[in-house]
């Protein structure tokens, strides 16, 4: 299914009301480390298709949602389950670190 680009307008529907767990990557074009993890986010979207919905939100174009979650650093990855944020990673990390959180999310 690939990465879904979400906005302040469809965040509720795409993320909070999703039937499956969701990973949201908050990013911006100015952010080098966001670029560094972008290919990993794309890979995860393919590899966990059907089990995990992988979304990206541009914080420049969508100020409301990052504000709600108190985001003051990017990249920030927030993991949602049943409409609730359950885990968070700040900064660019290795794929295996993200996958550990995904495994925990999917098995809980």
């Amino acid at each position, binding site marked *: 299914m690939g990465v879904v680009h979400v906005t302040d307008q469809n965040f509720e529907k795409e993320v909070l009301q999703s039937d499956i767990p969701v990973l949201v990557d908050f990013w911006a074009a100015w952010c080098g480390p966001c670029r560094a*993890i972008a290919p990993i986010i794309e890979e995860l979207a393919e590899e966990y298709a059907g089990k995990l919905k992988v979304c990206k939100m541009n914080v420049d174009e969508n100020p409301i949602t990052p504000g709600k979650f108190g985001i003051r650093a990017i990249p920030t990855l927030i993991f949602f389950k049943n409409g609730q944020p359950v885990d968070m990673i700040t900064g660019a990390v290795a794929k295996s670190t993200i996958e550990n959180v995904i495994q925990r999310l999917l098995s809980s």
Partner: protein
Amino acid sequence: MAETHDLVIIGGGPAGLTAYLYAARARLDCVLVEKTSPGGQVLVTDLVENYPGFPEPLSGFELMDRFVAQVKKLGLQTISGEVVRLEIEGERKKIVFDDGRVLQAQAVIIATGARPNRLGVPGEEEFLGKGVSYCATCDGPFFRDQEVAVVGGGNTAVQEAIFLTKFAKRVYLIHRRDQLRAQKILQERALANEKITILWNRVVEEIFGQDQVEGVRLKNVKTGETETLKVQGVFIFVGISPQSEFVRGILPLDERGFIITDCEMRTEVPGVFAAGDVRAKACRQIVTAAGDGATAAFMAEHYLSQK
């Protein structure tokens, strides 16, 4: 049988990418291992003004995009993953990943770079991403019209303090000494910038707040007096530490963990080279990392041809 190559380069910053450039042009069978994607620490640099050949400053990721584009022309092969161990079995080297994968190589260039140091004060971990940052270019825009502290006195601290004045209404530069270590050109700019207030002879003792950073407690190292400073952000640039844990006990390191080499990038183990910020040396710049990478690849080629 593990995947085997003549040369494995670990790390995709300026040193690793330059090593790849030279290795690929020498037609070595070579792969580059990177834990996220190529770029390294330079990705967080707002403007690179000291890389020769680029008279107009460019952003760190623009420069790294060019490094990557150049090696892609030579068919860059990358493997994604985090290396946790290097094993030396005579002439054969094994690179072990965190998920158990193993790569074999005859020669290895370690170019894993460094990461920013933590201050090691209460509140630092707790408020990471909630006002505490190690990347001004990533997080600076979240502090528009707010007041922030920058901790440190070296090149990075001063350059990032200047960068943050684009967003913050006041930047406090907190330094433990009474003079800056940064290059003179950066010092001149910081001193001339009306939005920057330098607080000399002070160390941060605590970062405090409720859900987000609300301030820092400072101690004056000359007088012993403490004071609080209300800021919404704390940007920490107090040096770097090498990413060399995976070779601890295998290669000689200096007291801070940097890999010791000779001037041709050779470590104590034949066929294992180190290049860039992870190496023990005095000057850590993009241009010196690139130079190290070229030398390491040249020496790796020489090593492989002697076998």
